[in-house]
């Protein structure tokens, strides 16, 4: 079965949906490639992502948009408010088409008030003649793009075949049998009649194309309006150029953030490569920030890891997550953008961010006391810059400087049941106890429901012991009386 054909095959009379044997009969020298729907979808998604250099609002055409009907795959771009950056709508489309053609894609593009009209024009209006106004409603750019004059959809669509309405093939055929071959033929027909014969789709598609009914398109990445976009005159190949671009982008974004009284918590830098690839780097900050220098530093470390390929032609810097940052303290030294807070924490924030954005260094913590007498629960590790991360440490009996993550079983020799051991073996070394203190009895937390075979639910007797060399250990015996098992839980300094 033929899935897709190129222009020359079309000229030879081939159509999608034709059995392969018939196709070979029509064109014996046919070049056949197996279809790769997943690969095509991936490529299409990559291209849609790449189109983010033109507009943050890009999407791949879904199957119900008519992609399956044999009119080729497509991308949606909502360029509202973006076109002037590229010298106008036609110039934007020509730029886009030019790049696609250079990569070897046979692409067509149209711009209209509605997705439906754009779809129809892109597929059924050849702008290749180019360069001048075709009629009152359409203009074409030198690159073959088709741009609809606002409000001209009705007139522009009129001469197109009904297939341009993104209809299912059987609906198209049905309309064709009745002699309704062009869209203009549908205009005078009462809707009720259309619905009775063909279901709701022709009327709906017509309304969508003409803008009577809204047609939402889900953008691929969530569209963000906090974006700094930078297009380079020539592809950037060196890190120095990117660093300068990054400096401008962060300055631009921070200006937007300042105006909105916001600070960024998560940011994404996207680098658009000449070959159509996109490289992304994301960073997070420990507190909302709009300090260009700090953001630049965080990204600068990531830039080195990104593969620039044959050059970067555009970059976008997006604030993915923001938080209000109203109070702005202008430091005496000119440091800007830090919110009011404890000075020590403010000064630490850049360090915590730099460490936190390195892979492998996720958790930067601060110790706080927790209301528990169980040694392993007495410390709460909090994020370094969370408010209230410190607290008051109540005096407690001697505690080791190291607490093993899991208590390690030790073999002991104890002379009397309630006494510390005389000898114990830990990590294959025998320690002779010279001095000892204890026991300190630590019971389970009564406010927790006891669980079976959980070590925190058994009474422990802790001993602080010193071996003959002066090394100190924290041992405990599990169970209330007598012959419980012994563990080593910590090391004393």
């Amino acid at each position, binding site marked *: 079965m033929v899935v897709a054909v190129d222009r020359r095959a079309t000229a030879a009379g081939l159509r999608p949906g034709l059995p392969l044997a018939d196709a070979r009969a029509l064109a014996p020298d046919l070049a056949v490639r197996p279809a790769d729907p997943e690969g095509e979808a991936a490529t299409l998604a990559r291209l849609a992502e790449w189109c983010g250099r033109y507009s943050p609002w890009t999407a791949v055409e879904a199957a119900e948009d008519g992609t399956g009907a044999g009119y080729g795959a497509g991308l949606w771009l909502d360029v509202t408010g973006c076109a002037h950056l590229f010298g106008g709508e036609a110039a934007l489309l020509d730029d886009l088409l030019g790049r696609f053609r250079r990569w070897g894609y046979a692409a067509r593009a149209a711009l209209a008030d509605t997705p439906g009209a754009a779809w129809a024009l892109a597929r059924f209006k050849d702008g290749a003649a180019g360069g001048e106004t075709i009629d009152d409603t359409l203009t074409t750019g030198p690159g073959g793009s088709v741009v609809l004059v606002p409000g001209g959809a009705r007139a522009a669509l009129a001469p197109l075949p009904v297939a341009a309405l993104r209809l299912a093939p059987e609906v198209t055929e049905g309309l064709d049998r009745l002699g309704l071959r062009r869209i203009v033929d549908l205009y005078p027909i009462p809707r009720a009649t259309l619905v009775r014969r063909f279901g709701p789709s022709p009327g709906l598609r017509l309304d969508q194309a003409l803008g009577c009914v809204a047609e939402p398109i889900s953008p691929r990445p969530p569209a963000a309006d906090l974006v700094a976009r930078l297009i380079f005159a020539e592809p950037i190949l060196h890190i120095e150029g990117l660093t300068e671009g990054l400096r401008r982008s962060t300055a631009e974004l921070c200006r937007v953030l300042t105006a909105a009284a916001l600070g960024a918590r998560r940011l994404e830098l996207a680098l658009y490569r000449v070959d159509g690839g996109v490289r992304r780097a994301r960073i997070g900050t420990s507190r909302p920030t709009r300090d260009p220098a700090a953001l630049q530093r965080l990204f600068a470390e990531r830039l080195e890891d990104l593969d620039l390929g044959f050059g970067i032609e555009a970059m976008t810097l997006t604030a993915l997550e923001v938080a209000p940052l109203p109070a702005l303290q202008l430091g005496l030294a000119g440091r800007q953008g830090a919110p009011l807070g404890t000075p020590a924490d403010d*000064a630490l924030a850049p360090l915590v961010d730099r460490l936190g954005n390195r892979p492998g260094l996720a958790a930067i913590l601060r110790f706080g006391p927790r209301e528990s007498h169980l040694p392993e629960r007495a410390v709460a590790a909090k994020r370094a810059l969370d408010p209230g991360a410190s607290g008051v440490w109540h005096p*407690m009996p001697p505690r*080791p*400087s190291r*607490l093993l993550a899991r208590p390690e079983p030790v073999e002991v020799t104890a002379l009397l049941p309630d006494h510390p051991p005389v000898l114990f073996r830990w990590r294959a070394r025998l320690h002779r106890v010279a001095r000892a203190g204890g026991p300190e009895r630590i019971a389970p937390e009564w406010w927790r429901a006891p669980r079976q075979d959980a070590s925190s639910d058994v009474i422990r007797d802790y001993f*602080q012991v010193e071996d003959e060399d002066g090394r100190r250990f924290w041992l405990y015996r599990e169970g209330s009386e007598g012959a419980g098992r012994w563990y080593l839980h910590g090391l*004393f300094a």
Partner: protein
Amino acid sequence: MEGPEGDLDKAVRLAGLRAMLRRLEQGSVAADRPPLVFGLPSIDDALGGGLSLGCLHEIVAAVEGDDAATGFCAALLGRLAADSKPILWIGHELYAPGLLAFGLDPGRLITVDPSRPADRLTAMEEGMRCSALAAVLCESDLLDLTAGRRLQLAAEAHGVTGLLLCRQPPPSAGQGTGRASAAVTRWRIAAAPSAARRVGSAQGSSGGSVGGPPLLGRPRWRVELLRCRGGRTGEWLVEWRDETGDFALAAALCDGSAAPARNDILQWDIARQAADGTG
């Protein structure tokens, strides 16, 4: 061209270069910054007045599994943290309540525990470049000359004191000073048997509970200063007095009863002895 201005200019530059050389030779960055004083004249003299700040120090444990070096570091940091700046501790299985006894407030610590050695040193360097920190402690292996030099330069530039705590002693170090290093000092710390606490005279000289071992005294460390730029090496037996928060030379305290006994364990054992002894 070669007027008096030129000579003057030359003289100024020469003086600048000489000062730079002197600084490099001495290795003491912050001559204007008072050093960290141990409070023990013999150690302070060997260091040339005290432990210089804003540079790199190495502390090596004598044996694996001997945590005396941690206590020594915590005691140093506790004294250093007097200016309320936080401390970055790149450590593993560190237990915050245990640091209180050495005068180090755990609330002053921020901590991170990367698993890869390179990540630990990265974190250390980042910390040393952050003037908001008082000190950075990194538990790591001993560094080679290049890596140590890099950290030392970061410390000099930003005035952050760096402690490199080597909990696993390098096998090659032996008894000598070991490898070359860019650090200003290298210490080796080992635990030493503590002095007996003479309490509960009913139990005689052992001072323990009935049939059990004697009680623990204050922590004692054998402190060796293996290398010190601009100072002398030395070896001391030091006791940490947590009730006053300072060091004492063990030799000066043959009599353990000199200081008031406020060790909690001790209190309990007295109570326990009373129960055992009468029963």
